[in-house]
C-alpha cells in the first residue's frame, strides 16, 4: 500500500476514534450551578492583577538595579586595586633611584678620600 493511501486510511481511523463525546445531560446544569455559586466578576481582580503585575515589574527592576550596582562596585574595587599597585610600584621605583643616588654619592666620597689616607 502506498504511503498516501496508508495516511488517508489512518486519518479516517483517527477521525472515527477521536469523534467528540458528550459529557452527559447533567453537565450544563452543573456549569450553571457553579456560575450561581461563584461571585459576580468585579473590577477588583483586574486591579489585583494589575497590582501584581506592577509588583513583579518593580521586583524585576530592583534585581536588575542591584546587579548593576554590584557590578559597578566590583569594577571600582578593581580600579582602586590597580591604582594602589601602580602607586606602590612608583614609590618603589623612586626609592630605588634615591638609594642609587646615595650609593653613588657615598662611593664618590670614598674615592676622593682614599689617596689622603693611603699617603699617610
Amino acid at each position, binding site marked *: 500500500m502506498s504511503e498516501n493511501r*496508508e*495516511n488517508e486510511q*489512518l*486519518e479516517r*481511523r*483517527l*477521525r*472515527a*476514534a*477521536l*469523534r*467528540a*463525546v*458528550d*459529557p*452527559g445531560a447533567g*453537565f*450544563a*446544569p*452543573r*456549569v*450553571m450551578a*457553579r*456560575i450561581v455559586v*461563584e461571585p459576580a*466578576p468585579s473590577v477588583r481582580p483586574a486591579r489585583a492583577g494589575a497590582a501584581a503585575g506592577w509588583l513583579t515589574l518593580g521586583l524585576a527592576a530592583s534585581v536588575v538595579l542591584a546587579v548593576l550596582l554590584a557590578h559597578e562596585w566590583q569594577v571600582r574595587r578593581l580600579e582602586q586595586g590597580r591604582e594602589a599597585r601602580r602607586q606602590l610600584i612608583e614609590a618603589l621605583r623612586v626609592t630605588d633611584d634615591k638609594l642609587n643616588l646615595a650609593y653613588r654619592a657615598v662611593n664618590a666620597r670614598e674615592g676622593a678620600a682614599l689617596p689622603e689616607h693611603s699617603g699617610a
Partner: protein
Amino acid sequence: MSGDQECTGGDLLTQALAGEPAAFTALVRQHQRAVYSLALRMLSDHHAAEDLAQEVFLQLHRNLCAVSSAAHLAFWLRKVTMHRAIDRLRRAPRLESAAPEEVAAAVSETQPADPLLERRLRTLVRELPPAARAVVLLRYQEDLDPVEIARTLRMPLNTVKSHLRRSLAQLRERLNETADALT
C-alpha cells in the same frame, strides 16, 4: 459548524450577553461536546476533563462580552480549552500517565466500527507529547485545517505541519508494530 447553527449560536450569544441564563445554558449545551472531548483526550481523565470543561465555561461566562460572534465563540472555546489543558499537564505531569479513558467509548453515541483499533489509536494519541496531541486533536476531532490550528494554539504554521507529519508517522509505525505483534 453549519450556517444554521451559527445563526442560532449568534442569537443565543446576543441573548446570553443580555443576561439570559437560559441562553447561556443553551450555549453550554451547544459546545459541551467539543470542549469536554478536547479536555478528556488531553488529560485522559474524566473527572479532570469535566472540571476543566466547567472552568472553561465559567471563564466564558465572565468574558462573554469579549466574544463577537458564534464563530469567534467556537474559536475562543477551543483556544482556552487547549491552553488550560496544556497548562494543567505542565503543572501536574502525572495526569499524562493516567489510566486509559474508556468513558469516551461508553458515552459515545455511535458504535465504533473496530472498537479495539479505535481504543488502540486513542491510547497512541494519548502517548503523544502534549503539543503534538493538541495538534492531532484539533485536526481530527475538530476538523480544523493547519492554519486554524496554528491560530488556536498560537503556534507557527510550520510547527503545526511538522507536528502533524511526525505524529502521523509515529502513529502509523506504532499501529504497524501492534499489527505485527498480533500476527
